[in-house]
């Protein structure tokens, strides 16, 4: 799907491993062991505290809820492990970035993990309505002078009267600066029989590509602008993207001179550096850079770096 340039971008990223990470591997490995040791000590201390509390509680509290307290204990251990693991993965990524090359700049940002107010993606209609938004990774930068943002995120909504949170979306949302000027709002969603518009300001429009129409519905507030943005070439490329990324769903939107693509994925993307494994191996970085370069190469795939564009 991608040109040979994807290999060269991948090589630039892997070159970063040789230049920046390799010299720091011993330090990162020591850091990993230190974090594991601290987590282990914290686990022992917590276990001791819980044990002492339980001993007192068994004698002092009638009908002491053993199962509930045991479940809470194991849950707390899982949260401790999970938080340590996440901190370690973020530390590695902080070390890797920023990555700068002749036509490529990429930064890794640490942002607040959960956002209850960021409704951008549901306002774009590329993700169903949600209550909570959890950021897992956030990359930003530019490639061939095209600005981009890559966000791996997860969204949830409340269900069962707020007792549980149900996952709405998990995957990657990428936004690119468009090479075309436009004013309106156009959304591409997975095909449905009803063609129900996500907004009263948008109406369904039918395009020429039969294969595209079988997979997607287009909603827009300006029919001419929708066809200006969604050319026959773009339709063909979107058709192939689902297969290439092996994803369940793709949705896209054009708004405010930006092109947004949401790729849902069950797999945890951009994973690097397991806290339980030795960090002195290149293989885990290879997969990470391959995923990253595949996403960035969408700029070339959609020809966003060219004035003629899609």
């Amino acid at each position, binding site marked *: 799907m991608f040109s040979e340039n994807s290999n060269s971008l991948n090589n630039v990223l892997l070159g970063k491993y040789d230049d920046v990470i390799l010299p720091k591997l011993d330090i990162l490995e020591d850091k990993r062991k230190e974090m594991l040791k601290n987590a282990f000590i914290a686990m022992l201390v917590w276990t001791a505290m819980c044990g002492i509390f339980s001993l007192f509680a068994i004698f002092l509290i009638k009908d002491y809820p053993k199962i509930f307290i045991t479940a809470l204990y194991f849950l707390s251990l899982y949260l401790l492990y999970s938080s340590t693991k996440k901190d370690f993965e973020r530390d590695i990524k902080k070390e890797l970035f920023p990555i700068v090359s002749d036509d490529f700049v990429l930064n890794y940002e640490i942002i607040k993990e959960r956002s209850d107010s960021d409704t951008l993606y549901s306002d774009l209609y590329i993700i169903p309505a949600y209550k909570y938004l959890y950021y897992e990774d956030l990359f930003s930068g530019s490639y061939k002078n095209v600005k981009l943002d890559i966000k791996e995120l997860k969204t949830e909504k409340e269900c069962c009267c707020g007792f549980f949170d149900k996952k709405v979306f998990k995957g990657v949302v990428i936004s690119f600066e468009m090479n*075309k000027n436009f004013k309106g709002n156009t959304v591409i969603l997975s095909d449905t029989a009803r063609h129900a518009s996500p907004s009263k300001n948008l109406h369904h429009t039918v*395009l020429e590509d039969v294969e595209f129409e079988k997979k997607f519905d287009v909603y827009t507030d300006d*029919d*001419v*602008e929708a*066809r200006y943005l969604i050319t026959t070439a773009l339709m063909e490329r979107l058709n192939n993207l689902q297969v290439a990324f092996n994803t369940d769903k793709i949705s896209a939107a054009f708004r405010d001179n930006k092109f947004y693509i949401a790729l849902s994925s069950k797999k945890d993307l951009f994973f690097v550096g397991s806290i339980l494994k030795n960090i002195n191996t290149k293989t885990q970085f290879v997969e990470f850079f391959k995923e990253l370069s595949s996403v960035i190469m969408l700029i070339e795939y959609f020809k966003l770096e060219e*004035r003629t564009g899609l």
Partner: protein
Amino acid sequence: MTLTTILIVVAVVLAFWFYGVYVSVIQKRNKVLEAFSSIDVQLKKRYDLIPNILTIAQKFMDHERSLIEDVTKLRTQVYSMANNLGNIDKKIELDGLISKKMGQIFVAMENYPQLKSDATMVTAMQTYNEVEEHIAAARRFYNSAANELKNAVEIFPSSMVAGMCGIKAVDFFRAEEQERKAVNAQDYLK
């Protein structure tokens, strides 16, 4: 339930059905008019841009004066035409001629490096290309609307309603015969 009541109910249902089909056909026709108008809007943007390009080109392109004058005359002709579906064939013809002449001007620009690198001309050409893409998009919209109207006019039962209301199908925008011919590279690489 008497026969009269049944007949009245059937007549009312038929009337509602007829009204529904009538509204649908009228909406499709209006969509064609809207699409035609959107092509006109984009064409006007192009025609408004042409004088800017010609003014800049005139300063440099001494030997292409007749070409520049031809485009100016064609533009004036198109501007004076009324905007309705009856003129569509003539408009397509004139627009095709303007596109052809402008294409010749852009090709001739290759002989004037100073003009090609002029910042104002570069911006004007980029804007012109954007407008061309909008015109192509507007034509696609028009063809889509024309297709929907054609289906409504030709397929029963909406064809019956369209016939009663005097609504007819419209022609699609199509490429000129010259444009459909395969390009022979030998003609250019001499």
